[in-house]
């Protein structure tokens, strides 16, 4: 499969990456090169083969319903959570106004 400039623009927008016209032009052949190369996967007959779900046979472990059992994954750390925020306001993260 291959992509055109319009498709790349659409993907870039889905991925929230601004791309200039130039950048789009440059990206089209690069992506097509890569896509043409990965297309060889289509040769492989995968009938009856399940997609891999766990690289090492293992199932999901569940944790107990305990608040702040481990401080590293618990709450009550607002200062830490906001420490790197570009715009922390009154305990909130500030973002450009959203109109819903």
């Amino acid at each position, binding site marked *: 499969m291959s992509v055109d400039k319009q498709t790349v623009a659409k993907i870039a*927008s*889905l991925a*929230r990456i601004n791309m200039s016209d130039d950048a789009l032009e440059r990206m089209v052949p690069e992506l097509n090169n890569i896509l043409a190369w990965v297309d060889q996967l289509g040769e492989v007959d995968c009938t009856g083969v399940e997609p891999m*779900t*766990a690289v090492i046979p*293992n*199932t*999901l*472990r*569940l*944790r*107990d*319903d*305990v*608040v*702040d*059992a*481990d401080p*590293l*994954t*618990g*709450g*009550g*750390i*607002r200062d*830490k*959570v*906001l420490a790197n925020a570009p*715009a922390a*306001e*009154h*305990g*909130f*993260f*500030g*973002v*450009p*106004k*959203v*109109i*819903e």
Partner: protein
Amino acid sequence: MTESTYRIQGETGEWEVVIGLEVHAQVTSHAKLFSGASTEFGAEPNSQVSLVDAAMPGMLPVPNRECIRQAVRTGMAIEAQINAWSRFDRKNYFYADLPQGYQISQLYHPIVGEGQLLIEADEKNGIPEDKIIGIERIHVEQDAGKLMHDQHPTMSYVDLNRSGVALMEIVSKPDMASPAEAGAYVRKLRSILRYVGSCDGNMEQGSMRADVNVSVRKPGGELGTRTETKNVNSVRFVMAVIEQEARRQVELIEGGGAVVQETRLYDPDRNETRSMRSKEDAHDYRYFPDPDLLPLVLDDDFLNECRASLPELPDAKRARYTGDLGLNAYNAAQLTLEVEVFARFETLLAATAKRLGKAEKDVATQVANWTLSVAPGVLNALGGDAKLEHNTAAANASILQMVDAGTVSGGQAKEIYEIVLKTGRDPEEIADTEGLKQQSDTGAIEAEIDKVLADNPDKVAEYRSGKDKLFGFFVGQTMKAMQGKANPAVVNELLKVKLG
């Protein structure tokens, strides 16, 4: 099955409405789905946010067993297929309330498959018979954070306290055909969730929200294009949305337009839905299995515990109330609607039966009437003067015992109950000291009856010559003479003897 007769009257004739609901129910748990932060409602902004919930670099999700358990129990309560092998997927989109840039949800392999829910007939609201509504699936997913738009002129504020709280998304089939059916469905679902204990059902706090899918079609015709109105947070609004949205779609189609498949928002102030432009381009969610999480495999022990811990559910309870307890259908329905109500009823029923040494079924109607009408009447009348800590099963049972024994009348029982609620005093002591007891002393009653008969010789003669209806007159006169405190049963009995 009798179909719903609900129709939208358009210019070109009648239209049917097809409704499906996706209900998001917050799972009752102490900690979030994938982090240890608290789920408590109403905390300071961002105070219940872990590094995981804020999607700091390198953070990883570890699922909360209780959230999984509650989803499974809910699935079992709607007799659904439970998938012992399920997995989590990522739903990718960008929004300020979604720190990871994806919601961990389940698309391909949900934990609960098809099930069903029964809504009861409600003739006057256009539900002629009991109806089964199909449920497509229940999956577990993360809630998003909250945006506040009115605190700053150019900024929205983000609070991530809700971010990562566990939700069950309960997806119905498009089996509903009227606002009333949808309302009944949401009420019934809420009731089941509360029975199971998997969600507190608190719609004001957002513990339950519905995405309402509506389309219209000519009766029996092809399905129309549907719209999805998001996050509707009361039964009343769900019904209003359906009405508004169906009407809007009919007008649109009849005006030569076409319904666009889109996400809409309900504005309760204006009672209308409008398009949510801000999420318009978010349709390609690029779902794929979350590589941070392995497949979720539930073993038999886990599933057995889930099943064993299920309480008696609304339909079964209602059947038992009408069957074993001999209650009428109305009482049974009312008593089983809310967890608090049946809990109060069953406790009082047990206490009363024990006190009277009778079988539960022999006192059930009496206790039901007390629970549904007498007690709430007194409580409401008292309002804030009632101290609920005094409203014990023991006190209630004691009053019911006196009523049953004929010691107090219905009216006296209410008066005693009122004093109990205000003061916490013992009901029997109140009856004794406040003179709130019926006279059952045959001597005193006999004396009054004799007086009444002597004062009304003509009526006595009429009665004896066959005018049976006059019996009530003698009862009334006797009761009046006794200032209402005579035991009516004793009065009846004595009158019958004296009148011959």
